[in-house]
């Protein structure tokens, strides 16, 4: 009788799961204060990755509080707590040979460490201390504002990078929670200690966090430690709900953003013309397929293969290009930008060619050879990452917070295994349309242009640059 009742109580209390797609036993449970814990045993190397992520990002900031999450995470990382000041923490981490970092993005705020297994106790102490004891006062806030201002001014010196930032910011629909991760310093300066403290107390609490531990751990022993360190921390009772991330009914932005900038890396004129496409939420399988397509295009640029040649018209329209995919819980983004030297390039021609190439892919798919090569490379990458516990922990966190469940941890690989040209054709047709595209134009070093620049440009682009490949 007792056993029967006990069974039901236990079952009710905790839902344990062994993931089928994860390599190594996975256990998950909630502490009574709401902290979600995901433990994965991997015993191949005597180390452990500890990542803690909070379900808060810049998308939670109201107009009056732009940049507040960045400032609070900076205070956590750069100031620390009474017990673990930044200096002391760095010293102790070095003693353990730890790798560590943090990332405050649109949708989440993450702190990660990878350390020898002997350091697990120490890291749990640090992370639990950060959940309660971060110092946020007038002095700290002033320091963080000063630092932000210094970083901002430093960045501003890189006019091209800054123009990119401005262009991407311009493409963020007004009134949508996704706004610049780098707001103007005047907005940062308007933040108060009280609002920062209240932000920290509301969001950086156990019931808004996920603790992921991957590595050479013993579940029983580790669970005891987790309870010791995190069990007493009170939960927050005023976590605001997630805002609406839908773009429905929100006015979209202008279709073109033009900038002129001086490059600190090049002394000659040049230009960047980019296409930005709005993409679906990371939740959709299409978003994963689109991310794979982005990687395939990147590979084709790197290999200078037929797809790249088609995009660039055999490098006559531009000599190089880069692609990027920004994954977010709300809408995501695809970005392809072309690069030219001695000229900016023709916006109309490049835009037309990019769209016609994508249309070609929509009709014909990717060359089998390239697709196979990409799949093999990704699989090899997986093997290489087998002992990168930190990457595994971060993937689990991403799956839990962005995809809604850590069990989707392997989704990218699963979709890749099944990926066919039919999938590629379908999503390319659906999302790469002219209506969905924004254009960025950055002309560089216009002041360096002179009467002979067109001649130099013609000679360089037709006879030198197009035939010269630094990778070969």
């Amino acid at each position, binding site marked *: 009788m*007792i056993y*029967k*009742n*006990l069974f*039901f*109580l*236990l*079952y*009710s*209390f*905790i*839902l*344990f799961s062994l993931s089928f797609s994860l390599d190594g036993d996975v256990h998950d*449970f*909630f*502490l*009574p204060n*709401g902290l*979600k814990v995901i433990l994965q045993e991997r015993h191949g190397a005597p180390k452990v990755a500890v990542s803690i992520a909070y*379900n808060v990002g810049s998308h939670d900031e109201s107009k009056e509080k732009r940049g507040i999450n960045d400032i609070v995470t900076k205070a956590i990382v750069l100031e620390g707590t009474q*017990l673990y000041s930044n200096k*002391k923490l760095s010293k102790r981490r070095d003693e353990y040979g730890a790798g560590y970092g943090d990332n405050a993005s649109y949708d989440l705020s993450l702190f990660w460490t990878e350390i020898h297994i002997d350091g697990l*106790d*120490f890291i749990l*102490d640090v992370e*639990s201390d950060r959940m309660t004891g971060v110092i946020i006062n007038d002095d700290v806030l002033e320091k963080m504002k000063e630092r932000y201002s210094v970083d901002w001014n430093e960045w501003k010196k890189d006019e091209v990078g800054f123009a990119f930032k401005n262009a991407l910011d311009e493409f963020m629909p007004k009134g949508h929670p996704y706004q610049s991760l780098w707001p103007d310093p005047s907005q940062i300066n308007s933040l108060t200690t009280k609002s920062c403290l209240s932000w920290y107390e509301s969001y950086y609490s156990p019931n*808004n966090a*996920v603790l992921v531990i991957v590595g050479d751990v013993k579940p*029983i*022993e580790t*669970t*005891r*430690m987790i*309870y*010791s*360190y995190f*069990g*007493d921390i009170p*939960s927050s009772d*005023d976590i*605001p*709900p*997630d*805002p*609406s*991330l*839908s*773009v*429905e009914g929100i006015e979209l932005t202008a279709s073109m953003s033009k900038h002129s900038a001086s490059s600190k890396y090049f002394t000659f004129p040049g230009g960047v013309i980019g296409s930005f496409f709005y993409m*679906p*939420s990371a*939740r*959709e399988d299409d978003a994963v397929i689109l991310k794979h397509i982005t990687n395939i295009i990147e590979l084709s640029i790197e290999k200078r293969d037929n797809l790249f040649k088609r995009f660039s018209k055999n490098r006559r329209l531009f000599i190089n290009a880069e692609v990027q995919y920004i994954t977010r*819980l*709300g*809408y995501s983004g695809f970005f392809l930008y072309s690069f030219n030297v001695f000229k900016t390039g023709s916006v109309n021609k490049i835009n037309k060619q990019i769209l016609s190439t994508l249309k070609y892919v929509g009709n014909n798919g990717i060359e089998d050879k390239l697709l196979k090569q990409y799949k093999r490379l990704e699989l090899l990458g997986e093997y290489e990452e087998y002992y990168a516990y930190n990457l595994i922990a971060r993937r689990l966190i991403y799956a*839990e*917070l962005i995809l*809604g*469940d850590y069990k989707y941890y392997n989704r990218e690989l699963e979709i890749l295994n099944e990926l066919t040209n039919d999938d590629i054709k379908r999503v390319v047709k659906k999302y790469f349309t002219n209506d969905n595209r924004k254009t960025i134009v950055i002309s560089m070093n216009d002041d360096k242009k002179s009467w002979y620049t067109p001649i130099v440009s013609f000679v360089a682009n037709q006879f030198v640059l197009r035939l010269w490949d630094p990778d070969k």
Partner: protein
Amino acid sequence: MKILLKYCFCFLSFGLTQNIGDGDIYDNSWALIIGINDYENVPDLHYAVEDALAIKNMLINEFNFSRNNVRVLIDKEATQSNINREMSKLLKSADVNDRVVFYFAGHGETEALGLEEVATGFLMPSDADVENLYFSAIPMEDLRNISKFSKAKHMLFLVDACYSGLAAVNTRGLSTNSPNYIDKITRENARQIITAGQKDEKVLEKDEWEHSAFTKNLISGLKDKKANSNGDDFITASELGFYLQEKVSLDTENSQTPQVKRLTTHEGEMIFLSKSEKTKQKTDDDLNLQELVLKLSQQLNNSQSQIQNNQIVIKPGSIGLYARNPSKEVMIVRVFYRPSGLAYVAKFKLNIEAADELSWSRVSVIELNDVLEIPGETKTGIYNYNTGIID
């Protein structure tokens, strides 16, 4: 029903306390832990900080000290004024049925003052000035005075410092053969001190130990239960002291002899709940992770159980509204049984451009009264504490 539930909890807690637990002796456990490597005016030490952090972790992980009740001062934080301030806070916080551990790892100094024939010992804070010890350091005699001001039942000072032998005075404790020995020592007050050495001795730290001789053996004595000389369930401060005397003397080839003394005439003993390794191993092996999580949660919420019969809850799969923002829909995934009271594991509806089934948040814990029923739509039932089933 309540009885049955309690029975279940007792069953789950079987491995923790055979006859008596820390919680039966003390309401709360407090600690002030100080470790100083980095001195402003005297040569640095190498392992005092490591020692302090190791002691802190041991108290939290092995001896049920609540993390919130353990204060640590390291290096430059450990100034004279900060130590006094934290000591004062500790004295105010600790109540009549509590225990307090004070641990200091750092330099000590000795100076003959004025007409005093006997030299006075001092604990050296990070900002101590050797030329002005009385006003910049903490006189060892102050430990005795401090202990008198506290209401705590048991206080233990562990001083891992040079010349630290000066603070102690000889007073007898109860013989272990006394009738009802355990009962008496846990009821009686105690003010005990264990120092790393006698006066004129210097404490030893070694790279191979990564600790001082004193703290190395302090950890093995408590954490590995080696100080449990009579094999019962407890380690007393006296047992610990005798263990340290033997082991530290051995490790330091008799150049350092820890002193175990009482600061007052009280005859109680600070108790550290001890379980033999064999018992502990059996306990852990017998529990699977699910049982352990429930047991640990029960310990956390021991004093807060709010079990209600006939608790009405929303059924899993049903949708309600978030009370704090009624425009938000909440889907109940399951009812989360916590010893402190039921809650929901639930998902929020997200407003994103994704298919309906993909637009729910991750699961999180939500309090029962934070979910409102939607009349005519939300399905409710009564949570059965015996079975975990919602009828």
